[in-house]
């Protein structure tokens, strides 16, 4: 908890949840995105339909799921599907409006690395790899990225492209990046643009945590802090143990 009365993670979750206003079908994994999506369901997007990447639709978890395949997302869900159906019939078919991604590295065009740090054949760090991230990036109508930012993660050039951004290819790439410092969207030409700074964060803080000359919105403003209602839902309902948000 900071002096502000909430953590950077709580700010990230509240900001990510607000971006879901007006969206319908969301593809969601466990962790921060799961909390953000469930917050949106209870605030700005009550009609949101959730597809868990482990293969369940319409889940009503009785507890906060601990891992992607927690049995609580199955019991009481509307449908369970195989991985073949999940990726083929739902994701590749284009039924998903919003997919969430994390990233070890991201560049100014939203290209994402979650595979290796260093050389692919002899890596410095072997990361988990794509999983479904490649397909989530290519097939969701919009991709939301939620990650902490630093000069090591917001880099001029990523070591490996796991999920494509928008650069020069006509592809969409991510549409929103929410970090612990601010919220970014993308220009028509695909470049990431800082739109709001979280309360207490300066532009210099951002520049110190980004490895390229950041494009700043001419109407740069402050992210509204988490409301009392948002904080209550996060703390009392969605993550009472503070697993993802402390």
């Amino acid at each position: 908890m900071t002096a502000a009365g909430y953590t950077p993670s709580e700010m990230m979750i509240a900001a990510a949840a607000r971006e879901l206003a007006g969206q319908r079908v969301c593809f969601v994994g466990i962790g921060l995105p799961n909390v953000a999506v469930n917050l949106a369901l209870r605030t700005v997007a009550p009609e949101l339909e959730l597809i868990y990447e482990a293969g369940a639709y319409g889940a009503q978890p009785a507890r906060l799921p601990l891992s992607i395949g927690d049995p609580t997302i199955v019991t009481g869900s509307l449908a369970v599907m195989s991985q073949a159906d999940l990726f083929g019939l739902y994701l590749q078919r284009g039924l998903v409006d919003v997919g969430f991604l994390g990233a070890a590295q991201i560049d100014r065009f939203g290209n994402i690395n979650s595979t290796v740090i260093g050389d692919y054949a002899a890596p410095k760090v072997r990361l988990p790899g794509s999983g479904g991230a490649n397909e989530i990036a290519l097939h969701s109508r919009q991709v939301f990225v939620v990650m902490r930012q630093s000069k090591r993660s917001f880099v001029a050039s990523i070591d490996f492209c796991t999920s494509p951004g928008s650069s020069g290819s006509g592809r969409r790439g991510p549409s929103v990046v929410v970090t612990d410092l601010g919220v970014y969207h993308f220009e028509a030409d695909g470049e990431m643009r800082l739109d709001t700074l979280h309360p207490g964060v300066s532009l210099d803080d951002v520049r110190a945590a980004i490895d390229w000359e950041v494009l700043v919105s001419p109407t740069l403003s402050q992210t509204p802090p988490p409301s009392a209602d948002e904080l209550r839902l996060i703390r009392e309902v969605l993550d009472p143990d503070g697993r993802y948000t402390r």
Partner: protein
Amino acid sequence: MRDAVATLVRDGDSVAIEGFTHLICFAAGHEIIRQRRRDLTLIRMTPDVIYDQMIGAGVARKLVFSWLGNPGVGSLHAIRRVTEGAQPTLELEEYSHFGMVGRYIAGATNLPFYPLRSYEGTDMPAANPRIRPLASPYGDERVYVVPPINPDVTIVHAQRADAAGNAQVWGLVGAQKEAAFAAERVIVVVEELVDESVIRADPNRTVIPGLIVDAVVHEPYGAHPSYAQGFYDRDNAFYVEWDAIARDPQRLTDWLETWVHGSSGRAEYMERLGPTVRDRIRPTGTAVAGAIDYGEYR
């Protein structure tokens, strides 16, 4: 389990223990370690702690996969040790999730390739030359394709099967069906061995037909520390604990000595885990599916 692995899993085989977070057959993985198999090609979408244990034990020379992490916890450290740095000793063959699923489908349906709209604009095809572009013969679209995979052995865990291996699964079904049909040999491990009449009472639940099954093993709790929907919960505490064990090669070796080599099998393993663990993974209650009627038609 001892006989099934002794007979059906050979040094140098390609082996898929499938189950997407659910029904991961740790009991079979441990038996493969116990019988000191070598040079295996291990295949799994999510290698998970079971393959970290198996690779830490030295059974494998190669890993075919799509997501290499300890779900909800972090890294698989035994695997990282043999894949990082200047001289990785474990060969990796890497896909996205749908790429792995496509390989299983192609293997299971005897297709020479499976088409996907994945990979465009990424470095994945460059990193794995088995991922290839293919032009559609209709119009000017291009997709990527992956080749079939046909494991020598696929091992799946199920809630129940009859003696012939007709296996029924509920909860997450992952890619077990495709991985089993793709395989040359199939081992089905179950929480409950049931009479054929139980299977026949609900044929829509059968995921794997006995037709393709070579061995059925009755091994309650065989998926611990993963879970079996309706039988027991995921033992998340163990997944967290494994992070610390696997970081330290000596601790990992000690763990394998104690819990795998030092244990005759799953029954002894569960006995040693004791009531604390069994209590913590017991479901908090029941959630029984409503009855349906197939109708009698004479």
